[in-house]
């Protein structure tokens, strides 16, 4: 136990041999990974590899069948899904999942629902608006009528409203026009530069590897390899299988 504690010191989030899945279907097999404070990492892999399941497991939307998840040394084993965010883990879910009939500002307000986050609502709203001036222009607009890129900004802004230490991003570029994809990755880079610890899950491997420090390759629910972004970009395995070079 001491050895584990020593090993995990320094890691913000640490997954130890995590297996998880849905009823009758296992999606993750003994996944281990760690993220250090201030780091930005990506989990890359093909469609159906279990990337979204991984983020849903960290947020406790899916139960862990074996292994453990530690946030700053604290096990998430007995933490219900709605209390994960109070530990500083905010997720931008797949498909953005905005509240389509609420305004932009109301969506952001929901991000600050935690009683601990409410007193800092206006301060963080200012910060989110400084990050995404576009959202301020559209603050009264119904979220469902935003463009795809704006919706992604709003979803990221909503997650930032809780003042998280760790931001989980699920396929932020999915379903967006190529031009917009570029701007979303620029945004992710800025968020990393703001000092947030970021775990991003992406299929857009070439782009995401330019943004993050390190990455893990997930295939059929197992970590196949990992390393610094530059290393992975140069590795034959990745180049052949995913970059088509």
């Amino acid at each position, binding site marked *: 136990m001491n050895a584990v504690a020593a090993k995990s010191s320094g890691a913000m989030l640490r997954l130890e041999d995590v297996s998880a899945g849905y009823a009758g279907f296992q999606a993750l097999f003994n996944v281990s990974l760690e993220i250090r404070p201030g780091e930005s990492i990506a989990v890359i892999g093909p469609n159906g590899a279990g990337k979204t399941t991984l983020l849903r497991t960290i947020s406790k939307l899916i139960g862990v069948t074996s292994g453990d998840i530690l946030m700053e040394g604290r096990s998430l084993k007995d933490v*219900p899904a*709605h209390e994960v965010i109070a530990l500083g883990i905010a997720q931008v879910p797949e498909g953005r999942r905005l509240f389509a009939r609420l305004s932009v500002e109301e969506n952001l307000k929901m991000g600050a629902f935690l009683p601990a986050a409410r007193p800092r609502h206006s301060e963080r709203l200012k910060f989110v608006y400084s990050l995404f001036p576009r959202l301020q222009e559209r603050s009264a607009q119904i979220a469902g009528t935003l463009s795809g890129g704006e919706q992604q900004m709003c979803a990221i802004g909503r997650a930032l409203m809780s003042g998280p230490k760790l931001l989980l991003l699920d396929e932020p570029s999915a379903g967006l026009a190529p031009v917009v994809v570029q701007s979303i990755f620029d945004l992710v880079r800025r968020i990393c530069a703001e000092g947030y610890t970021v775990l991003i899950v992406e299929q857009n491997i070439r782009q995401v590897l330019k943004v993050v420090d390190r990455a893990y390759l997930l295939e059929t629910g197992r970590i196949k390899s990992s390393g610094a972004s530059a290393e992975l970009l140069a590795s034959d395995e990745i180049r052949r299988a995913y970059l088509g070079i």
Partner: protein
Amino acid sequence: MQIFDIFLLEAVLNGLLLGGLLALLSLGLNLVFGVIDVVWICYAELIMIGMYAIYYFYVVFGWPLLLAMAAGVLLVAVAGAALHQFVIRPVLGAEPINQLLVTGGVLFFLQAAATLAFGIEFKNIGVRLPPIVVGDISFSMPRLIAFGVALAGMLAMYVFLKRTYLGTAIRAISQDRGIMPLMGVNPNRIFIFTSALGGGLAGLAACLLVLQYDIHPAIGLSFGPITFLICVLGGLGNMVGGFVAAFIFAQFISVGGFFLAVEWGYVIAFVFFIAMMFWRPQGIWGGK
């Protein structure tokens, strides 16, 4: 001709007051449906329980009327929360027809239980408020109060849903239940709270109805169907739509009853409802 106009005016104004009462009745049912997506078929029976509660607190226990009413509201609010926890929650993921049947079962259970517990004789709290007479027009005082309370309740609800974190969460959860935990929201707590609020509104309706009607185990049948129709007419779950529909429905009843016989007012209102179901099945206010 002069007299005719005054009576018509009286019918319109009384329709307005009836509309207030119907609007209040539909408010709680609409709230629960809009948020939890379950229709409380037994909603009017919760009102019946509230009426009995007020009767017992006021007449049998001798509490002051307002205290008895407050206790009645509280009791029905608790009943609403219990209804969710013990009846709705286990079938939350089930087919809508099962959810409907289960609350329908509660309807018959409450009726039968009330018959056994309170008997079938009509009970009355014995409070008679005099009508208000303005010139040649007279208004029912309880209806005037109901109208005021309905407007105040609607306004309070609007401000609550728009301005507070809890209210925003209640609107959000009806749009995407699955990601609420990511916001730090425990969906079940929101549902319990909403159910208690819906129950409390049924209790509030009970307070206004005991001033006008006798209490008996089947009284829910007098209000249940019309409340349900108004909610559907306004677009189920749409509180503004329900509010508008209540006033339209009440005008059909009141003005229709003025030109023909009172019963004809209801006939016209229901024919209007059926026609609307063909023309705008999503409700008069419904967008989708």
